[in-house]
């Protein structure tokens, strides 16, 4: 092979390999949405879905089964708020809508914004745990010393696997004050919170 022809071939190889490198760099970032999609389909990371649209009349509760739902709350490291469930656990029939309350209190002397992140075990129950209303769909802005009651309305789907007798739903509360622009959210969030929570 002549020197020239070899150089051309080397250039072609390098170009192709560079395309692989670029492609794999893009793939690394594509893994983020792919992971979210995968978790949404499988319920893999225990994150429950967004608001569930539900018509009361269409579902007949399964009176033959009772499922225990345990509620756990914790605040992330460095988050000074108090956060506790109204009841530690409730028993529900699959298909039956239930409303429970959670409470938060801003124990500091400055306004703060918080976000609750759900996590559910067993993973096999994740896709059957529906929430029609949840404080975790929004962010909470609390004034110094303010305490609010936050409702959460949920339905355990009738299709819940037979071997699941109890479900643990955990909420971790994160301080996101630094992440939100206070001036833009102040108005609607406060109103939103006050109107839903009622004080």
């Amino acid at each position: 092979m002549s020197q020239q022809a070899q150089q051309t071939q080397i250039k072609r190889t390098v170009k192709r390999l560079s395309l692989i490198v670029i492609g794999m760099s893009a793939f690394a970032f594509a893994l983020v949405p792919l992971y979210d999609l995968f978790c949404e389909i499988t319920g893999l990371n225990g994150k429950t879905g967004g608001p569930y649209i539900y018509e009361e009349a269409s579902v007949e509760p399964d009176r033959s089964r009772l499922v225990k739902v345990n509620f756990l709350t914790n605040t992330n490291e460095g988050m000074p708020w108090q956060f506790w469930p109204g009841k530690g656990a409730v028993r529900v029939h699959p298909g039956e809508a239930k409303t429970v309350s959670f409470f938060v209190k801003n124990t500091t002397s400055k306004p703060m914004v918080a976000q609750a992140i759900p996590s559910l075990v067993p993973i096999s129950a994740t896709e059957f745990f529906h929430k029609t209303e949840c404080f975790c769909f929004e962010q909470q802005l609390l004034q110094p010393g303010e305490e609010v009651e936050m409702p959460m309305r949920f339905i355990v789907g009738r299709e819940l696997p037979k071997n699941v007798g109890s479900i643990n739903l955990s909420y971790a509360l994160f301080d996101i004050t630094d992440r939100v622009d206070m001036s833009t959210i102040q108005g609607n969030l406060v109103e939103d919170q006050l109107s839903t929570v009622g004080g």
Partner: protein
Amino acid sequence: MSEVIHADHHDDHAHGPEKGLKRWLFTTNHKDIGTLYLWFSFAMFLIGGVLALVIRAELFQPGLQFVQPEFFNQMTTNHGLIMVFGAIMPAFVGLANWLIPMQVGAPDMALPRMNNLSFWILPFAFGMMISTLFMEGGGPNFGWTFYAPLSTTYAPPSVTYFIFAVHLMGASSIMGSINIIATILNMRAPGMTLMKMPMFVWTWLITAYLLIAVMPVLAGAVTMMLFDIHFNTSFFNAAGGGDPVMFQHIFWFFGHPEVYIMILPAFGIVSHIIPAFARKRLFGYTSMVYAVASIAFLSFIVWAHHMFTVGMPLAGQLFFMYSTMLIAVPTGVKVFNWISTMWRGSMTFETPMLFAIAFVVLFTMGGFSGLMLAITPVDYQYHDTYFVVAHFHYVLVPGALFSIIAAVYFWFPKWTGKMYDETLGKIHFWLSFVGVNVTFFPQHFSGLAGMPRRIPDYPLQFADFNMISSVGAFIFGLSQVFFLYVIIKSIRSGQPAEGRSWEGAKGLEWTLPSPAPYHSFTHPPVVKDEEVLG
């Protein structure tokens, strides 16, 4: 006749090595760059070894003796990072630089200037990473796997240096790999078909593809860390909708192929040494090539076996368990082929052969403990214990590292034109062999009994095993200083070596005189059948 005269005339004008420091700074010669890589990796190996000895000194007895837990964490983290990215990987790239052009009959690497760049990036990368140990707040302390949020929210301020160091290492590896693939695919001597290539060349070809596939993913992972730390994104932060578990998936999507990046070239080296000292052809050459290719493919679909305990559906656990166990099949093919190569061979046991045989035996043991870890239900017990430490050190130290040492002894005469001292080589082997087993074998037991890894203190029940382990570590560490002595002594006063330094050695590199001339195969050689490995 006139052509011969012309060739001689041309050689007189060929550039020999420059004198002094400039030779090494500006060199584009594959042999010089190979030498630079090898010495650099040896320096990193000694630094990483010192960190390991700090760990073993602290663990000699229960309680805190020498270092504080914060510093201990930096030692485990940097030991791992330096050994993986600074010692093992550059050593293999150095061997590739020295050997691949000679083994395929090419005059040099395909892209000699890029070759220079990919080496000279490395001292800066590691200089930057190691300098963080002396900064306020300390260096990386989150384990070599740098799981978020340890490496983001809770990281020391110096983490940005670490991130850019990893970027540089990645860039160096990617450039090196592109160079190696371009050389192998385009510059083989006429007649050297793919299935006649030496095994070291084959394994490096596949390794280089693994590197360009996963190094960008590693770069992506550290870039996401950088964004989370400095630009308020939430890739790995649950509060902003991210997920720390995703970090582990992305990391191990890189990390598992990385494990094979560190062992496939070792398979290649051993496939040269065992036939040479058994004086037989390599048994099952074709199956060896396909086994390496299958291991490389499987490495992409087993990553989650590193993270069985994060919570995963049963189907996922079963998939990753079975796909992991499947790797034992091609690996078994390779081990049996090496044994069959030795079977009824006229074996002699020079130092490279001793290291190669120890590789086969001890790597197989590391493989078996890997199979135990692959069993999901028991992995819940073994996860993050010293059993894991014992497992991966068995595949990396008497695995990857022994193969590199074997390669150094095996090709030493070709590189330097001198023979090493056989007696000293054998002493080095036996010290290393005893040292490595005394260090790591007891860790299986402490791990099975539940001793967690990366912790500077432990309950009294683990005291004996840890003391034995520490004694072994110091034997092993000092025997590598002895290795340095053997090498320097042999370079200075070794006996002159023949072109074909080993009776049974095959391959184009052995048709060259020893030491190999600065410019070799400027005209492509004829590939004769008796020089083909398989």
